[in-house]
């Protein structure tokens, strides 16, 4: 591959039809660091977390009102003389899971209620309306992300946004996450993509999407005021949920097996108690008052576990919200975090097996710069391992879709269409299903069926594309890097649209 082709594809998001080929590829990448503008926060009709949270809060209010009017939903169903022993319905926020879930993960069959005679069910109607709204918000956000990737003048920085959003993954599975998932990228990742890792980390861990996704919003210190009050009633067990604390250490900062213990996780979970979300943080002692707008980060002192904490041998004196923040800042500065981040960046650009020298260098740069992200990006561009042949990365479905649209000169997408396409290709946006995010190795994407789906999609995209001559387009997309096999296949195609389809599934397009 030529340097220009590497800059366009490996660092960027793929070459765009009609765009000039960068004369000096490295300079072209470096200047993007200065030119990037975080565009998507509150842009146009893209809802933010405040708007999504307000809708969720309204939905929860509506449910409470319905329960007051009808009693619990189960009672309503029993009154309708349903068949005996109907199993308990999944809780409200588990239902309308998500737009078109990927086929293999949707284990739970569609709602059990569907099979029964149709009775008016105001609970189900309210839930359906909320799920519909969430899916619509989700689709608008996916389309905004795609449009930004298709039109950006700083595709390398845009790639870094996608990288960090996957590093700090949330998943649009439960109803409340469907609308919120994308807002984490727009509000906590994009504004900090050229800042420090510590700033991004602090923004992410305070964002409502993360607090809800990893159950932090319902974690209560057992010895906090709320914990003791509920404990004294003796009816319900309340307490710690260590999910966020564990994943911050394992996934967001230090990395798995880096020397922290179960006790460290539990201590960190205690320090994090009180960090929650106004208006939509559910569960015992949930936030009912509305001093803050729904979705706002809130530190609730009477849910915070009192006392000093010891984490990885270091004491953190009692200090309310600042206690966990101090832990976060120490985690961000830790050498294990530096190596973890360096490894993932090196894997993203240098290859599935990160070149060890590249990892060492990036680790040193991270520590020397205090986790300054632009400094890390410059070090990536300066890495000789990043400019080698052959293309080391198999494109993910998202990367392939964006690169294909860019190649065809597409600049706008229909929300429902882009969501559907990414689902079918096997990588629904912001929906990896687990907090580790999507894998960044070929083994997870280069499957027989995955390739077949790309071929099917390519044929459809090519049919709809504006008239483009693939013979002229191909050498511009891959300057001095087009293989004879691809040129020949394109030249011999039976139609312009078939030539485009072959270009989109060529080995050059499948990898970067």
């Amino acid at each position, binding site marked *: 591959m030529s340097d220009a082709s590497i800059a366009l594809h490996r660092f960027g998001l793929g070459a765009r039809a009609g765009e000039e080929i960068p004369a000096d590829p490295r300079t072209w990448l470096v200047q993007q660091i200065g030119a990037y503008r975080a565009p998507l926060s509150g842009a146009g009709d893209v809802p933010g977390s405040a708007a999504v949270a307000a809708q969720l809060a309204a939905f929860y209010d509506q449910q409470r009102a319905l329960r007051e009017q009808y009693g619990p939903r189960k009672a309503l169903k029993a009154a309708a003389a349903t068949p005996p022993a109907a199993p308990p*319905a999944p809780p409200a926020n588990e239902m309308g899971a998500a737009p078109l879930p990927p086929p293999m993960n949707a284990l739970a069959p569609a709602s059990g209620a569907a099979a029964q005679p149709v009775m008016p069910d105001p609970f189900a109607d309210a839930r359906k309306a909320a799920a519909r709204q969430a899916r619509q918000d989700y689709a608008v956000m996916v389309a905004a992300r795609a449009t930004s990737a298709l039109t950006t003048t700083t595709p390398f920085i845009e790639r870094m946004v996608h990288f960090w959003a996957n590093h700090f993954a949330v998943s649009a599975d439960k109803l409340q996450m469907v609308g919120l998932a994308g807002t984490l990228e727009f509000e906590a990742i994009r504004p900090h993509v050229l800042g420090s890792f510590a700033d991004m980390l602090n923004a992410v861990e305070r964002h409502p999407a993360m607090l809800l996704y990893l159950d932090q919003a319902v974690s209560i210190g057992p010895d906090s005021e709320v914990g003791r009050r509920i404990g004294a009633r003796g009816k319900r067990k309340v307490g710690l949920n260590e999910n966020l604390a564990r994943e911050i250490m394992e996934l967001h900062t230090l990395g798995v097996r880096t020397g922290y213990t179960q006790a460290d996780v539990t201590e960190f979970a205690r320090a994090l108690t009180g960090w929650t979300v106004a208006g939509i943080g559910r569960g*015992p002692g949930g936030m009912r008052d509305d001093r803050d707008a729904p979705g706002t980060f809130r530190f609730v002192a009477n849910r915070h576990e009192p006392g000093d904490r010891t984490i990885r041998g270091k004491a953190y004196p009692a200090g309310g919200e600042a206690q966990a923040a101090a832990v976060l800042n120490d985690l961000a500065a830790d050498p294990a975090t530096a190596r973890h981040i360096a490894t993932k960046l090196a894997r993203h650009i240098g290859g599935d097996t990160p070149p060890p020298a590249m990892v060492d260098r990036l680790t040193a740069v991270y520590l020397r710069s205090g986790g300054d992200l632009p400094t890390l990006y410059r070090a990536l561009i300066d890495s000789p391992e990043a400019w080698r042949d052959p293309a080391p990365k198999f494109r993910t479905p998202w990367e392939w879709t964006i690169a294909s649209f860019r190649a065809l000169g597409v600049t706008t997408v229909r929300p429902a269409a882009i969501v559907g396409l990414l689902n079918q290709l096997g990588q629904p946006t912001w929906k990896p299903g687990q907090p580790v995010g999507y894998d960044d190795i070929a*083994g*997870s994407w*280069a499957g027989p069926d*995955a390739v077949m789906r790309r071929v099917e999609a390519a*044929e459809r995209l090519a049919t709809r594309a504006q008239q483009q001559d693939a013979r002229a387009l191909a050498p511009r997309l891959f300057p001095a890097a087009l293989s004879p096999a691809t040129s020949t296949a394109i030249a011999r195609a039976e139609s312009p649209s*078939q030539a485009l389809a072959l270009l989109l599934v060529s080995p050059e397009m499948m990898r970067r």
Partner: protein
Amino acid sequence: MLDRRSLLVRGALTALASGVAPRMAFAKAETDRRFVFIIQRGAADGLGVIAPVGDPAFVSQRGDLAADLVGAPRLDSMFALHPAMATTLGLYRQGQALFAHAVASPYRDRSHFDGQNVLETGGTGPYQLRDGWMNRMLSLIPSGEARAIAVTATVPMALRGPHEVASYAPSALPQASDDLLQRVSMLYQGDSQLHGLWSEALSTRELTGDLAADNGRAAGATGGLAARLLAPANGARIAMIETGGWDTHTQQRARLTANLRGLDAMIGALRAGLGPVWDHTVVLVATEFGRTVAVNGTGGTDHGTGTAAMLIGGAVKGGRVLADWPGLATANLYEGRDLKPTMPLDAWVAGAVAGQFGIDPARALTGLFPGNAGAQPVTGLIRA
């Protein structure tokens, strides 16, 4: 113009000529045994599925989560099966379902990702082995039967390795035209990775006919799809299905019920779809580790250690729960919080594979789980 079938034949001939054809079947006689692994990603709560209701500490330890289980159908004097698994219960009563409890892989920490890596690679620690135990299984069984498929869009870790494995999941995209498929074959000829993937994709598509229109979103449809890939005489002998949603940190009662209903439907569809082949089938259901014995503050459970696993199918010598029960009293728990593992999952899986394919149990254990060769494979799991 070539149709897909002749394309396939041509692809096979090309492969033969270049010496990379699948190994030909000689020596051993073929049987019609089938093996399916349903992986439960996210750490399924074994105590909530096969519940030790006869343990005196069960109700006090499990609090609200005991409610669905104390009245659930009993399997024996100790265990009850979650009521959402009615089909599976029927199979148990017919002697076609066997459960193991207090089992664990060699992995003892609590990371999903490391735990799944150990469960799928069959190593004794994460990232120690680079291929999956199901791929190594393909070397152990008669080569004429060494055809495996992942009922997913990509191949999961357990099936990755030197043996070629197909993958298939239903797609709503319109099928590409035959002419384009043929040209793509030519385009990929010089690219070893894409050529291999593409040959697999074409042969799988051939096998499934018009299934692409099916939307397999529900678990039952996935089970039915897997059955269609397994049932034909020239179909796959080994399949893997991925399921998720088991990481029940919150509101476990409802979520586990819904998930188990789906799993039960998947098993029912496999049995129905396999027809007479079901008699020669073993379905393994297993997860990376269990969950805490105590309920957390949010109606769920956190990452734990020991859990339950299942073998289901006409070939299974079932109607039993195998467990060297460690007890749920706090003093008996692993690290004071988790079900203590008393049987290595590896020994159990190796015993099942050995019984199913007529392999010497010790050889199965060494081949599948090379780091765990000192363990004693559990025998007598499969009907002769």
